[in-house]
């Protein structure tokens, strides 16, 4: 079965017992699921377990899957499993909730992104966001999912997705402004804000 097959046809084939079809779905979405799980948890081993668990659960739940968006479904399974992991980590403080950004060997070379200092600053700022805001930023800004799909993944209204995204971006900007590694990006773009002494971050809404 080729990679151009739609998710719906692959899901139908997998539901009929075609293991190769399900393997195609796994290969198609394992990257995004792993990336989201890793940046949510900050732990490679835990993220690996989450991805495996998500696809195993998806496989055994294929008969009950009646939706149309396989990616959103498996991401929802992985997100719920990641939340369970975070709750367990809170009960056992030895497991660090926040973690240093991934070392350079863990990321593939990406054309057009040469600012490793900026990447590290972004990863560090992401890790400092609350989990609910972090999940929205990861799904919308990093992975490029549309709002309605993110709402399906997180099982929240689209309006809540937007409000969390807005708060997360504001928090990210504040964190990046305080990180000297991120100034490279802002200076490069020539848009470093000239903050006046005593200026406040909060502004009244537009009238």
């Amino acid at each position, binding site marked *: 079965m080729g990679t151009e097959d739609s998710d719906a046809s692959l899901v139908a084939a997998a539901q009929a017992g075609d*293991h*190769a079809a*399900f*393997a195609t779905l*796994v*290969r198609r979405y*394992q*990257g995004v699921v*792993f*990336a989201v799980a*890793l*940046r949510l948890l900050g732990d*490679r081993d835990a993220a*690996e*377990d989450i*991805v*495996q*668990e998500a*696809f*195993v659960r998806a*496989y*055994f739940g294929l008969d009950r899957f009646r939706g149309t968006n396989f990616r959103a479904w498996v991401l929802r399974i992985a997100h719920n499993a990641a939340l369970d992991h975070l709750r367990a980590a809170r009960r056992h403080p030895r497991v660090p909730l926040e973690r240093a950004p*991934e070392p350079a060997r*863990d*990321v*593939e*070379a*990406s054309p*057009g*992104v040469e600012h490793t200092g*900026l*990447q590290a600053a*972004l990863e560090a700022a992401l890790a400092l966001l609350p989990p609910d805001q972090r999940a929205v*930023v990861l799904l*919308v*800004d*990093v992975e*490029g999912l549309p709002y309605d799909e993110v709402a399906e993944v997180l099982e929240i209204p689209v309006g809540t997705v*937007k*409000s969390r*995204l*807005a*708060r997360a*971006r*504001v928090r*990210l*900007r504040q964190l*990046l402004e305080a990180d000297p590694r991120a100034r490279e*990006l*802002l200076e490069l*773009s020539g*848009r470093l*804000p000239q903050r006046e002494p005593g200026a406040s*971050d*909060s*502004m*009244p*809404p*537009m*009238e």
Partner: protein
Amino acid sequence: MTRHVSHIADEELALLATEELPPAAAAHLASCAECRQRWEQYRTIAGALRSLPAPALPRDFSFDPAAVAALRPVPWWWRYRWPIRVTTLLAATFLVVLLSSALAWPRASPPPQRVAASTPTAVALAAPEPTPAEAGAGGESVTAVQALAGTPAEVGEATPSPQAKAVVPSTDREQERPVGFGSGTGRVVVVVLAGLLALLSAVGSVFGFVLPLVARPPRLSGSSRIGNR
């Protein structure tokens, strides 16, 4: 009077960074350098996030069909096997204790009652007023008192005077009725309780011990990974 120039709220600017600008917002951004600067900053950050490289996959997570076929969801009896085992052992222990007590208890009091019932009245009337302690000790007078209660017809004929009632204190009256396993109600309770405990022990043995040993589900994580490294 001077008109106050309002800026766009920070969160709204953050959202507008990746959305189509409404005409009012576009007009404001064209005229307000501060808001435009902040809006462009959010656009830069969003773009940088979108350009973050994907982490390298540690392995291929696709399934081996043979491994998939062997995998089954963890059944409920496996998930709760330890509580089931503890409950089963407790039920079995209570069952043994209950049956042992039920077998030993009935021999304690009824036979002396029937023996003493043949000559009850004289001793009962002649005996001094018993104290509760003496009654509990189970001496000859107590046996006679119990016999009195056990045979009301005979007592009624032999002790017509109210003196008999004065002789028997209230604590003895409580012992008149055979309580515990020997009574009819007691036997029913014992049988029902024993049946429930036996049922619980049998079901618990199957789901807590037999099934986990015979149909142990495979591990899904840890050493037995199902993907390909």
